[in-house]
């Protein structure tokens, strides 16, 4: 039954999340919302890099566009929250479209470097125009959870539901896109662009489309991120965010959506686990400050060395090898 109707699988999963959110404490609920947001953001990178083969090291900038668009539209026009999110998606998609036009002619390190420079330049742009609220940023308040759900619906639970719903919808939609002819054409361009062109695929348009969709999804993640911290500021989308997303994508397995939760959970869980493990020991300042960073980096290097395609692909490759032998 699940085979024919993946929608049922997703709905089931969503229901399970709903049940769990009522049993778990606030911190976990908030972290769950963060995981959902990362899931969306990482999926956007998987689409762009894994399927379309374009490396972006500045995805944080696209998240920022989404976050600012949502905050501005809500603060200045008072739009309802769902509309603010839609505006975020469209604004980021537009940004992605423009970036894609420029990027279609670039490849490899040139593209990576350009996106990197964008991520670095964006806070500067935000500081230039006072409408963006400068360093302290803008408030983004999605309002209290609806009273009809009662007292037990705390703000973080509300965030979690919204983020999870958005994540489920996005992933479901992305899966369909990637299994459609667009997805197949991206894959063929990725494996052999000359052959793909011969087969009649317009590579430039192809790449721009991937960028646009990826950016729109990233914009949604950015708006949700702004929701979760109730503010949007240039500092909320630093270079390290772009790097974390790329890292999460690699940890998940950048060529497939299947492992996207792994990367998201790792990004949220590892800093906390490492942080509490370190604080157990009475240690000098130098150790306490740097040990978390050290462990996280070491973990990253080891994972990338030994499981570079991500656990999902690795498992599949092993299964295929076993099937062949």
């Amino acid at each position: 039954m699940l085979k024919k109707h993946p929608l049922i699988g997703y709905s089931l999963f969503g229901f399970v999340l709903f049940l769990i959110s009522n049993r778990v404490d606030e911190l976990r609920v908030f972290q769950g919302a963060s995981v959902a947001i990362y899931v969306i953001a990482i999926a956007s990178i998987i689409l762009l890099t894994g399927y379309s083969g374009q490396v972006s090291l500045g995805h944080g900038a696209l998240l920022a566009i989404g976050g600012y668009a949502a905050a501005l539209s809500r603060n200045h026009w008072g739009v309802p929250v769902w509309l603010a999110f839609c505006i975020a998606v469209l604004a980021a998609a537009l940004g992605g479209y423009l970036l894609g036009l420029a990027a279609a002619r670039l490849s490899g390190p040139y593209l990576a470097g350009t996106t990197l420079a964008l991520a670095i330049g964006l806070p500067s742009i935000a500081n230039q125009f006072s409408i963006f609220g400068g360093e302290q940023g803008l408030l983004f308040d999605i309002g209290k959870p609806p009273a009809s759900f009662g007292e037990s619906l705390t703000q973080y639970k509300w965030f979690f539901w919204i983020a999870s719903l958005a994540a489920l919808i996005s992933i479901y939609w992305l899966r369909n896109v990637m299994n459609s002819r667009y997805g197949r054409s991206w894959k063929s361009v990725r494996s052999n662009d000359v052959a793909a062109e011969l087969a009649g695929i317009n590579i430039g348009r192809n790449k721009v489309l991937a960028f646009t969709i990826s950016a729109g999804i990233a914009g949604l993640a950015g708006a949700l991120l702004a929701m979760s911290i109730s503010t949007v500021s240039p500092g909320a989308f630093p270079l390290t965010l772009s790097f974390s997303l790329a890292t999460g994508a690699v940890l998940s397995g950048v060529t497939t959506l299947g492992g996207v939760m792994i990367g998201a959970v790792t990004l949220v869980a590892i800093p906390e686990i490492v942080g509490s493990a370190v604080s157990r020991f009475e240690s000098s300042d130098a150790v306490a400050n740097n040990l978390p960073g050290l462990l996280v980096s070491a973990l990253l290097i080891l994972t990338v060395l030994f499981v570079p395609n991500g656990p999902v692909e690795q498992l599949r490759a092993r299964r295929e090898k076993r099937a062949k032998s």
Partner: protein
Amino acid sequence: MIQFFNMLLIGIGAGSIYALMAIAMVLVWRSTRVVNFAQAGMALLSTYIGFELVQKTGNFWIALPLAMILGAVFSSLVEILLIRTLIKHSTSGPVAGIVPIIATLGLLGFIRAIIGFIWGNQDVQIKAPLSQIGFRVGSQTIALSPMNLFVLLTVFGMVIVLGFIFQRTNLGLSLRASAYAPEIAQLAGVRVGAIRTVGWAIAGAAGAAAGLLQTVNGTGALSPDSLEFSLLLTFGFIAAVIGGLESLPGAVLGALVLGLVLAIVQIYISGTLVFIVAFALLLLVLLVRPQGFIGVKAGRRA
């Protein structure tokens, strides 16, 4: 008039700093086709080693070559342990593009943490070996000091020496061949793996020089979170791209252009536009002449 002349000197001086990093990036790119974020991290570590050497020997001129040698050693180790394993395990395609970048990012974080462990997170200082006071021309002090001059000379020296190695020696030929066509090079008898390590070693030495020189040319302050190093990485990359990622003289030219443009913007327009202009310049070059000023139009897509 004086201000214009000073602006030129400032721009060239800044460009020479970017050039140091750009050279290291181009070296790694030409040897291994990997964009190495850990360049900045390894340069940082080498600079700290240089700091220790200056402390121990009291002499910068001994510390500099020693740090460069140690930087080369460390860089080769990274290549052998990290990069080779990566290349062995990964498939081709986009994974091959992004995975090394993530791995070197992880290495950058690792190095930063180690530095914080050993030397702490506060500033340490390296005293400049040469005077930083500008030369006097007539009654004016110009924006060029003995230290600045030394950096400029070093940059040009590196370009000449490295250019010679790459273009005129067998080692250079092997380096270029191993990067462009490893299988064919192997067939021709080149030990591709060893050559790649040599390429990284050279880049490590260049990075060490870059780190040390830019520190003493500036305020002499060093910390694991030095803003300078993170920015240098990006600006060095932008410089390399402007000049053409494939060419050393191009990297230097690109760096000088970048330095001059930014100096003009900062002095005559507004200091708030620095990052935006750098990004715009990068975008402009990529759109109009993606192979850079000096680069040859390549048929292949990296």
